């Protein structure tokens, strides 16, 4: 792969050209919270302090709250309109763990039925990856064989190698963005070597590990072990942080609002840790908290692997770092009994 490079000082020029015909979204610091917002064009200092956002990039495609259909009761019946969205945008600075999570959610929203709300935003977005040179102590992406310096699910991958940024073109769309010959030079052999060396040195910086080998069958075997799940869920308080801020969580809720003659149908984030998630008028199949904790773990490490063949966790560590009671999924997964003998389902 012929990779290019750009000096960090010229990054501002590159972003300026993109900004002219794209809605450019970059990491920003608001109220001491790292989030992603439209670039104000001042500087690219975020390269130094940016580690990872609190709210994952899925929020750009599946927003916390979104109007799906607006309706109006007219004399001759109900008129339905769908808001048009999805202007062309570039998201700069997506870490490899979040990039894979976007690919996982893409699968879910295009499988069997296409979700046009998600896709109208996703197809108009160019995702620019940024290798992760300072993982948190809660990150465990290497256990899910994600390398902090590799990402196949982005259009371009920038890697910080000192005072230059190595650029790898992954897709055609990404290549089309690099037509600035004066600032973007060909990467020399030394640069690519530095990039390769980073692959191992940065992977070693990820300290937290968890053995997820054959986790699907291990979980299947201990699924009905109520005592294990009650112990795992003992300290969980059932809030929505670990699901809302998880890059691979995509569950949503649909609700209507109506005031006099006008109203709308909204889609908003929902979480399997809430009781109302499965509450039916007559009964609630997942009333107890240990069932909801079991659903959260098994959906990621057992159900989606069984349905789509991919583990729906990318080890970004947000659920550990931001949990009010420091509930650690790696400790729970390590506690799942090793099923050497019986591999079968029951």
């Amino acid at each position, binding site marked *: 792969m012929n990779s290019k490079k750009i000096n960090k000082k010229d990054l501002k020029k590159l972003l300026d050209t993109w900004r002219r015909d794209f809605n450019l979204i970059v990491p920003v610091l608001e109220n001491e919270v790292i989030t992603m917002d439209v670039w104000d064009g001042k500087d690219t200092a975020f390269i130094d302090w940016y580690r990872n956002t609190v709210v994952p990039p899925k929020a750009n495609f599946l927003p916390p709250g979104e109007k*799906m*259909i607006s*309706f109006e*009761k007219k004399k001759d*019946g*109900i008129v*339905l309109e*769908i808001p048009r969205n999805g202007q062309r945008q570039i998201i700069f600075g997506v870490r490899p763990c979040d990039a894979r999570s976007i690919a996982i959610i893409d699968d*879910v*929203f295009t*499988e*069997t*039925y*296409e*979700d*046009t*709300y998600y896709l109208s935003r996703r197809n108009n977005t160019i995702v620019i990856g940024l290798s992760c040179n300072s993982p948190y102590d809660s990150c465990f992406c290497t256990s899910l064989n994600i390398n902090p310096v590799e990402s196949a699910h982005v259009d371009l991958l920038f890697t910080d190698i000192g005072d230059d940024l190595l650029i790898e073109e992954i897709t055609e769309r990404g290549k089309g963005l690099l037509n600035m010959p004066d600032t973007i030079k060909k990467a020399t052999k030394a640069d690519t070597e530095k990039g390769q060396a980073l692959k191992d040195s940065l992977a070693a910086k990820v300290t937290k590990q968890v053995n997820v080998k054959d986790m699907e069958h291990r979980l*299947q075997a201990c*699924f*009905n072990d109520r005592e294990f799940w009650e112990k795992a869920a003992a300290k969980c308080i059932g809030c929505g942080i670990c699901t809302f801020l998880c890059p691979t969580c*995509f*569950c*949503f*809720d*649909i*609700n*209507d*609002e*109506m005031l006099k003659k006008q*109203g709308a*149908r909204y889609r908003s984030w*929902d979480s*399997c840790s809430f009781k109302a*998630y*499965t*509450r*039916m*008028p*007559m*009964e609630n*199949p*997942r009333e107890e908290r240990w*069932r909801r904790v079991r*659903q959260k773990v098994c*959906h990621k490490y*057992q*159900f*989606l692997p*069984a*349905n789509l063949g991919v583990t729906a966790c990318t080890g970004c560590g947000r659920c550990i770092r931001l949990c009010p009671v420091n509930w650690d999924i790696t400790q729970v997964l390590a506690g799942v009994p090793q099923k050497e003998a019986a591999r079968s*389902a*029951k």
Partner: protein
Amino acid sequence: MTVTQISQRKKYLAQDNVYLPHIVVVEKIIEETPSVRTLHFHFKDDTLNREFTFDPGQFAELSVFGVGEATFCISNSPTRQGHLECGINRVGLVTNALHRLGTGAEIGFRGPYGNSFPLDDMRGKDLVFVGGGIGLAPLRSLIWNVIDNRDKYGAIAIIYGARSAADLCFKYDLDSWKNDKTVNTAVTIDRNESGWQGKVGFVPAVLGEMAPSARNAMAVVCGPPVMIRNTFPVLEKLGFAPEQIVTTLEKKMKCGIGKCGRCNIGNLYVCRDGPVFTYAQIKNFISDEY
């Protein structure tokens, strides 16, 4: 996972947006019981009225704009075209809103979703329908479908029960099935009431008494979860193998197309891989949450 071809189902989805409901107009309302009413409705758009088909057992998402959306099985038989019927038990937000509607009201319709009863497995077999309360709504679609091509199937037995005589749904269907010689119908209520001639007792018990033969037969069970759980052992005692028993399950649904993640039992989604499951599938469901 029995998946009818997706392309056939996708035909009736609104142009490109899977969440955009079609508008249907309520043409007739039958008050079955104080808490159950059947809505007869047709599409506002005529081409859909002519073209729309579905299989018995499939469900749809009816939406009352401004209130919400909920899941209802289509309870008329595909062999009787021209309009659609849904049985609505008044229990929650949307169902209460549906119960306030008058004829001519416009509501939203999304579907048909989910798989359907295994009609081809049932060909040439004796059929036993076990229904409870509003559970007769999905069964009714299958029963009329079977009766309309009667020669393809063997003997039919219908065991249906409800809490009290006033709670019996689709009384007019029950009467026509009783008059039909080829159908052995038994209607029961939980506790005896004055002026009640039919059987008395819970559905599983009455099923045990009737003891339909399991040879070359299939059983279809639908009703409140407690009735379903108690009916399975009775059927097994009568010699029905798990593959011969079919049921439809009900869970909270929002999208109906396997995206919003809440209607799962283990890794199966009731809206996309169900709602019809065989007892064989249910027996080795990983989770007991249904």
